[in-house]
């Protein structure tokens, strides 16, 4: 019985010492607020969970990890504010590209879509070495599909991409619908009326001391081409990234094209940037972009010869208006690729050339008002003939590329096949040297044009901006301001004597007259 008591006592002692050890272990450390008991518990639970190899050798590291794990949890009491980055915003907008409308499932298959076969074009462009990357091309084509659906366009194709300094433009070309022409003309006429009013107010200035009037007569304004013809044949839409809304570019005017030929500027990527240049560009970046697009299209849009044939020709119009219509030739067979790559005469331009004036059809600006009286004054007509400007003529539509002029000692086009190893299935690729970035490919019956670049023409060695005209002399010369030498003393005296003689002679004559009268 004593042993039982002793046993109880010793076990109680053991329990007590264990409890005191546990209490000691549960004491929180003053530095880190952890206690040994909890730490060892966690450590052993971790070892039980993970069963690492050679655990006794790595136990210190495991202990360190456990301690570190605790500290990190306690420090993150602040919650992160989620900030939407630009990438996320764009991704949200691009998600809409991939949504499919539920109504028009089956109808699409039957009706001819205005959208071209997108994956095929992307494939051929990649073969030619041009392209924007596969995913980007896919996104662009989906954005084109969105454009077609939202604007109900007849025909649409990807024109290309113009790279700018801050961001780029993706350009799509489409054909005008019929109703749009009237809307555009109305807005143009309203703008012109406003301009005339302001001019009338300006001319009523001060009439006291006439200030020298400027004798500068600005060149007569060349009228715009009607929408649907010439340089305004197609309408262009731009967007910054596929998925963002498309913006329509205004139609181009001939003065914008002539000025764009003289300046050399990068695009910034914002459509409302002013274009600071000399000669001053009439418009902002949207107009400059449209003018460059018109020039590039006129210079580099080509197709295999025979793909298009001339539209209906009216019998008498051989000399006058150049053809501006063409239609797809149903009998086109397709020229073999090696021939397309070798000779430039197998390619033709299918966009009208822009004349010096800035339009595709020439307009005679020297026609003076009051032409009705011409029938009477034939002599006047003969005098006017040498002043009349000669009509400008450009190469007619569908001229082959072999007639393109060379500039700065470089041939205007370089051509090759896309692959030399498998030339049976290659495509012929044409690259423009005058507009770096313009490409065309043809393979059998399929062809396409694209432009990816900075939007500038090759300018040879250096570009020098045009010099401003010389300033006007202050006053038009007249008798009031011409200098004359002051008469010298002898001349004055001679004049005085002459005058006195005259006066004396006059007096004598009057005297004799009076005497005669008296006599009578």
């Amino acid at each position: 019985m004593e042993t039982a008591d002793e046993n109880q006592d010793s076990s109680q002692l053991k329990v007590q010492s264990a409890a005191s050890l546990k209490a000691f272990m549960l004491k929180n450390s003053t530095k880190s607020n952890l206690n040994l008991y909890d730490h060892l518990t966690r450590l052993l639970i971790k070892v039980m969970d993970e069963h690492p190899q050679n655990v006794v050798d790595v136990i210190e590291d495991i202990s360190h990890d456990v301690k570190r794990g605790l500290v990190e949890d306690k420090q993150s009491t602040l919650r992160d504010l989620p900030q939407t980055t630009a990438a996320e915003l764009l991704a949200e907008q691009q998600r809409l590209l991939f949504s499919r409308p539920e109504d028009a499932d089956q109808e699409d298959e039957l009706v001819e879509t205005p959208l071209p076969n997108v994956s095929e074009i992307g494939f051929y462009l990649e073969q030619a070495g041009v392209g924007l990357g596969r995913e980007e091309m896919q996104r662009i084509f989906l954005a084109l599909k969105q454009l077609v659906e939202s604007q109900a366009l007849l025909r649409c194709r990807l024109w290309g991409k113009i790279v700018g300094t801050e961001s780029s433009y993706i350009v799509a070309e489409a054909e005008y619908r019929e109703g749009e022409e009237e809307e555009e003309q109305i807005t143009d006429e309203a703008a012109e009326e406003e301009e005339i009013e302001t001019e009338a107010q300006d001319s009523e200035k001060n009439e006291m001391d006439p200030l020298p009037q400027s004798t500068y007569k600005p060149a007569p304004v060349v009228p715009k081409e009607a929408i649907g013809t010439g340089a305004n044949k197609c309408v262009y839409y731009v967007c910054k990234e596929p998925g963002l809304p498309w913006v329509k570019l205004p139609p181009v005017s001939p003065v914008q094209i002539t000025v764009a030929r003289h300046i050399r500027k990068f695009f910034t990527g914002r459509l409302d940037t002013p274009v600071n240049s000399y000669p001053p560009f009439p418009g902002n970046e949207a107009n400059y972009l449209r003018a460059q697009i018109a020039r590039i299209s006129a210079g580099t849009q080509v197709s295999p010869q025979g793909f298009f044939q001339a539209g209906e020709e009216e019998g008498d119009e051989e000399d006058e208006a150049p053809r501006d219509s063409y239609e797809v030739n149903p009998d086109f067979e397709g020229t073999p690729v090696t021939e397309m790559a070798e000779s430039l005469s197998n390619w033709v331009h299918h966009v009208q050339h822009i004349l010096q004036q800035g339009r595709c059809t020439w307009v005679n600006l020297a026609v003076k008002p009051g032409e009705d009286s011409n029938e009477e004054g034939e002599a006047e007509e003969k005098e006017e003939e040498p002043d009349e400007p000669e009509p400008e003529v450009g190469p007619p539509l569908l001229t082959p590329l072999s007639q393109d002029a060379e500039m700065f000692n470089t041939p205007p086009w370089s051509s090759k096949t896309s692959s030399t190893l498998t030339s049976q299935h290659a495509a012929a690729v044409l690259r423009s040297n005058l507009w770096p970035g313009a490409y065309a490919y043809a393979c059998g019956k399929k062809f396409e044009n694209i432009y990816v670049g900075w939007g500038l023409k090759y300018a040879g060695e250096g570009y020098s901006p045009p010099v401003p005209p010389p300033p006007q002399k202050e006053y038009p010369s007249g008798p009031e301001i011409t200098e004359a030498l002051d008469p010298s003393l002898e001349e004055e005296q001679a004049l005085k004597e002459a005058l006195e003689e005259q006066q004396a002679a006059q007096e004598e004559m009057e005297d004799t007259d009076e005497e005669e009268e008296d006599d009578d």
Partner: protein
Amino acid sequence: MDADSLYYSLELVAGSGYTLNIEQRAALQTSLVILRKNYKFQRVLYWGKILGLKEDYFIAQGRGEDEMNDKKNLYSFNCMDWFLLPPATDSMIDEVSRAAKGRFIGDPSYVYEHLEIRRQGEGDEAEEEEVVTKVNEESRLAVTVHQIDEEVSVVPRGAFIKSPHGLVQVNRSFGGLSHSEAGKLDNFLHFSKPKNLKKKSILEMGDLNPSIDFLDVLSDDIPKGSWSLQFECASRVCVLRSLLWLGLTFYHVPMTPQHGYIYIGDGTKNLDLPFML
């Protein structure tokens, strides 16, 4: 761009409009590996393409121990057979700048000629001497590649470190610039011998780390605005384009060590830059 990263990095620079044909890509992957073995390079880069009127040159660059000084350039027409370009010496640079005008033709043996008539002596005793400078297209190519590297090659800050011995090497613990850092032109450096470093004030030098900041910063370039920084590919890639040599594109994916540059263009410097900005 590094030959090992060719298969994905070409998509990232395609925003400038140029890609490689799948056939050329496959040929490059094979031939660059062989090139590395033959010439014993540490790294082989696909440098780019110079477009000529008749043929295009594909350019590759091999790097040795020291990334900055130990470079060799090679060219090829079909991405398979490579020819070594001579290193560009000062006299070669002089001759090329005098004689070579216009675009590259595409034939390495084409000779550019430049005729200069110099007069020596005075008055009636003047003797006219015709000095003809002849340069062939291969030297012009070597000089052009060298000039582009000197003037517009770009690396992100921290991608290369300079060891105390002076060797410039790839920084293996480069994690990439963050998204906000990649939007600033200050964080990109020219990969060529620095010219402006000594002009920095002591205050500015205090912030810099000498092992990383031993190169010129892009934002010090004159004229300002000669670099175009954009985020492309749904804002994931930071793309830098040079406006001085049109065709040089640099890409960097933020928060990853992926970066590289490539030049695809006609090999002419854009001297009209001040008019165009």
